């Protein structure tokens, strides 16, 4: 009797240790709380929807994809611990983080483990640290800002600019890129106003703007701070155009700033209001599924999911090292990989190039004013 029981137990144990059918695991490490929650939640939902669609259509290489979520709490050290945890859990590729201050810290962990990472961050330093495993889902500010400055000088005739920026990795990157480009274009910087992450009150900063003669104000803050800034600028009657990048005029910012967002302009890598059929359809499906309009971060996450699918299918196996190698110098067109929405290229540093848009907020919606070619 005892022999039968132990025998059965031994067989059961042996069967239990046979590895389950190998799944492709993705680590979705984003800001789900803290000041970055707006951006991180959008990115997470974009990745989630992308992989839900991919799994419904048969998965990657016929295998279902398992997306594990981790909350970085917008804290760089927590994000680093979450990346380590994801690697210990056996992920194939990582998606996230969005906030540059977190990415510069956590990407070193992914680099050491040889795990490719699709980040939503835009600080120039991220692709300047010799990391062969980091890939962008939106081009860095050192690529975006030159396009913006060209538009401001050539189309808007701007000669004097006031700069309001966030004193974070992201803000410093944009600020440096802007100051350099402005100098090259002969644009004078009449005011330089740094602000803090999670800053609540912008009255003192807007007061400084009122005292200077500027043709436009370049605003480089993250989403919640942008909304507070726009409200204060409207309240104090700032009439100069407020121009920024994606973080100034995203949908969450429009929701939080309300009427104060109207008239704000920005250069965006991605917009739900672009006149691209695939984009419009994706936005409609997203809004249906998640009950809110996606912003550029959601589109970044979605395109990352499809980039992972298409590249894995190109290399024929879920091999992290081969994946990273394939990505360098790769161009994926929307024709060959429809989920990627727009043609995109990556260079050897993981920096990406893609068409972009100049938009203005009118009646609570982003309206595309110009399409700018990839650089």
């Amino acid at each position, binding site marked *: 009797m005892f022999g039968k029981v132990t025998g059965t137990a031994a067989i059961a144990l042996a069967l239990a240790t046979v590895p389950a059918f190998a799944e492709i695991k993705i680590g979705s490490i984003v800001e789900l*709380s803290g000041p970055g*929650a707006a951006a991180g939640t959008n990115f997470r939902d974009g990745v989630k929807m992308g992989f839900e669609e991919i799994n419904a259509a048969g998965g990657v290489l016929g295998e279902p994809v398992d997306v594990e979520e981790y909350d970085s709490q917008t804290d760089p050290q927590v994000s680093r611990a979450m990346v380590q945890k994801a690697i210990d859990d056996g992920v194939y590729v990582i998606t996230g983080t969005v906030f540059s201050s977190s990415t510069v810290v956590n990407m070193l962990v992914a680099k050491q483990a040889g795990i490719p990472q699709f980040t939503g961050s835009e600080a120039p330093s991220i692709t300047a640290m010799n990391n062969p495993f980091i890939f962008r889902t939106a081009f860095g500010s050192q690529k975006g800002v030159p396009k913006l400055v060209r538009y401001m000088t050539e189309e808007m005739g701007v000669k004097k600019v006031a700069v309001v920026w966030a004193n974070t990795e992201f803000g410093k990157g944009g600020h440096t890129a802007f100051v350099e480009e402005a100098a090259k274009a002969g644009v004078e910087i009449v005011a330089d106003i740094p602000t803090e992450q999670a800053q609540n009150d912008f009255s003192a900063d807007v*007061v400084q703007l009122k005292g200077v003669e500027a043709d436009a104000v370049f605003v480089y803050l993250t989403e919640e701070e942008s909304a507070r800034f726009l409200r204060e600028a409207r309240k*104090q*009657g700032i009439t100069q155009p407020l121009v920024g990048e994606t973080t100034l005029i995203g949908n969450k910012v429009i929701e939080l700033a309300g009427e104060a967002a109207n008239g704000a302009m920005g250069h965006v890598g991605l917009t739900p209001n672009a006149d691209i059929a695939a984009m419009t359809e994706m936005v409609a499906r997203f809004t249906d599924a998640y009950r809110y309009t996606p912003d550029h971060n959601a589109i970044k996450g979605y395109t990352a999911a499809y980039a992972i699918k298409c590249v894995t299918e190109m290399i024929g196996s879920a091999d992290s090292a081969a994946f990273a190698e394939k990505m360098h110098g790769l161009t994926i067109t929307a024709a060959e990989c429809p989920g990627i929405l727009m043609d995109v290229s990556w260079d050897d540093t993981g920096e990406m190039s893609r068409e972009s848009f100049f938009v203005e907020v009118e009646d609570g919606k982003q309206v595309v004013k110009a399409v700018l070619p990839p650089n």
Partner: protein
Amino acid sequence: MAELIQILVSGLAAGSIYALAAVGFTLLWQASQTINFAQGEFVMLPAFFVLVGMTMLGLPMWPAIGFSLVLSLLILGVAFKRLIVEPMLPHGTLPLVIATIALGLLMKESVKEFYGATAQPFPAIFPQTVYNLGGASVSVQDICNLAVSMLAIGSLQLFLNRTAPGAACRPRRRTPRWPRSWA
């Protein structure tokens, strides 16, 4: 000069909100020797109750504010006292302080879990008109923030000093009693 007026007015308006939170903290300390580390969450929760009233129960703004006030009284007043303060206070101040740290975490994570972690737009309670006062932009919101805060703090002072229930909230001993052997 316009800049000074602007910063003064905006500072007073924002500061009056923080003053209300500070008064709440002090009152709790005075009345029950509680150092409430969850005070920030105590300020956050009623605002979310208003949003719940408006978005989930479909109430108009003022009934939602009434709903939030009643719920806050029950949860942050009655439930807090019965479930946290009364069991922990006999063990001393420190266990109660630690309990409020845990309470703060619980409240924050509960809101994140059951409502959402992202910032939410809040409806405007006061008209959004902006006046020009010597070159500074003074909004009706700023003035009303200040007025409501001063009214709340003033009323609280009257309650504590001029009414019997208020007097009961004040500490009985103002000076520490030294052991006789020290005299």
